[in-house]
């Protein structure tokens, strides 16, 4: 191996160490019986027990799961119906439709969150659970992009065969199109679930004072000077990261099938 290649290899390895050390340290501290990693007094789940008996953490966890699940189901339904219809539109119209939907993906979250909350204030729409769900659901185009890409690569002959053999379009859609789309539906759904699960800014803007999701809870306990790091927060943050990593793994698996 040439010296240059070796150097590149060492450099890449060092950057990965940089990327993973903070997360690893945080995860390790959450399993430590002592308050921080320095006095590592042994492996323990005491902070997990403490976190999971904290009523505020439990309700934040519940809210996070509930919001992400509802958002995923609705976003998938909207994305599939739209992709199916756009597939049958003229080229020009389809392109314009795509471009309009993509805007919500590239707009920075903080600017989008502010415009949405001003709309809610202007219409006196109550902030809270429903506002948060609506805010996350505006991200349905991320599912649409994935589903649309799969649909564009699909051969139409199977659908046509089903129609020729007498099935209605609805039946064709349910029994032919949908099963073919499944890998894309799953990977798109995983993406929007993660965006919702991870969302802080949008949730923070559209929530009501008593409504917390996990990222909001972590923000409220850990941001700003003087508040800093709590072992219970390490534990719940570790749980949240494990969920994210599991989702990432599933996503990569389903992308391979797609």
């Amino acid at each position: 191996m040439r010296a240059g290649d070796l150097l590149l290899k060492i450099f890449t390895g060092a950057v990965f160490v940089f990327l993973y050390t903070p997360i690893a340290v945080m995860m390790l501290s959450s399993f430590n019986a002592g308050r921080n990693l320095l006095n590592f007094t042994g492996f323990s789940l005491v902070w997990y027990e403490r976190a999971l008996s904290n009523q505020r953490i439990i309700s934040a966890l519940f809210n996070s799961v509930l919001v992400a699940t509802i958002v995923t189901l609705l976003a998938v339904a909207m994305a599939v119906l739209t992709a199916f219809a756009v597939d049958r539109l003229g080229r020009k119209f389809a392109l314009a439709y795509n471009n309009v939907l993509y805007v919500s993906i590239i707009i920075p979250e903080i600017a989008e969150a502010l415009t949405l909350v001003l709309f809610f204030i202007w219409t006196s729409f109550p902030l809270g659970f429903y506002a948060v769900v609506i805010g996350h659901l505006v991200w349905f185009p991320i599912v649409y992009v994935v589903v649309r890409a799969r649909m564009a690569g699909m051969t139409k002959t199977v659908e046509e065969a089903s129609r020729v053999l007498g099935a209605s379009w609805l039946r064709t859609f349910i029994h032919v199109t949908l099963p073919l789309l499944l890998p894309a539906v799953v990977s798109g759904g995983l993406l929007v679930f993660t965006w919702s699960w991870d969302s802080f800014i949008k949730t923070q803007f559209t929530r009501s004072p008593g409504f917390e999701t996990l990222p909001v809870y972590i923000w409220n306990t850990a941001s700003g000077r003087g508040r800093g790091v709590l072992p219970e927060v390490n534990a719940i943050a570790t749980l949240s990261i494990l969920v994210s990593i599991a989702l990432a793994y599933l996503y990569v698996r389903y992308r391979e099938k797609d």
Partner: protein
Amino acid sequence: MRLSRRALIILLLPATLFYTVFFIIPFFISFGVSLGIFLPSDVQISRGELITLRYYEQVFDQIFLRVFLRSLALASATTALCLLIAYPMAYYIAVKAVRYRNFLLLLVIMPLWVTFLLRAYALLTLLGPEGFVNGVLLSLGLIQQPLFLIYNETSVLIGMVYSYLPLAILPLYSTLVRLDKTVIEASRVLGAGPLKTFFKVTLPISRPGVFAAVLLTFIPAAGEFIVPSFLGGPNEVYVGTLIYNAFLAARNWNWGAAMSIVYISVVLLGVVLYLRLVGEELRV
């Protein structure tokens, strides 16, 4: 399979309606708010102004201009550092590490699935006053007092690079992986050294990837709010912090709306320019 016009409209209706009501209309409402047409402030009402540019004047005020410049500086430094680190890494993964390519790519993607909030928090557990680094140094007796590793500009920059690096690696990887190796070999065979080959062949070919990496890091970095709030001092205010405070702390909606409109316009302009540039490249 063809569908009737009516079926098409029924299928398109839910998403179109939802997107229009909760994404497109809010944008126009906010534009109205930024001009004081909707949700006018008390000052504006007392002066009887129905429509005003005062909130845009506030955005381009001296002090806020300084915040904008500081955000641009942070975003530029973040983007430059990310590119410098990401390019060699993407090159290594795409061209050299063929056998472990997919595994290394997974290692790049995984941090992106963990929210910025948690990654900034993780940096806090590493570098904070009670953090791991300080703890090790203290217990080794190298220092007597914990060092202030965070709450300064350097820690914000480290946090930014840490957060945005994977976003810069991915587009660079996808252009470099399609790089035709025979072109590089041709350059070498014809007598160009490795440096000359890199600057005259590899870098120009990977230009679309570099553009995409710049866009993906620079735009969100300019409005980044979470990383500076966790790792920056109280005086380090950026555009993201301003928009956040305009809404949640100061309740100055009009000013927040004006800032968001300016920010969104800059972003859209950047994307349009990018598509133009890359579009040209692809055509050539």
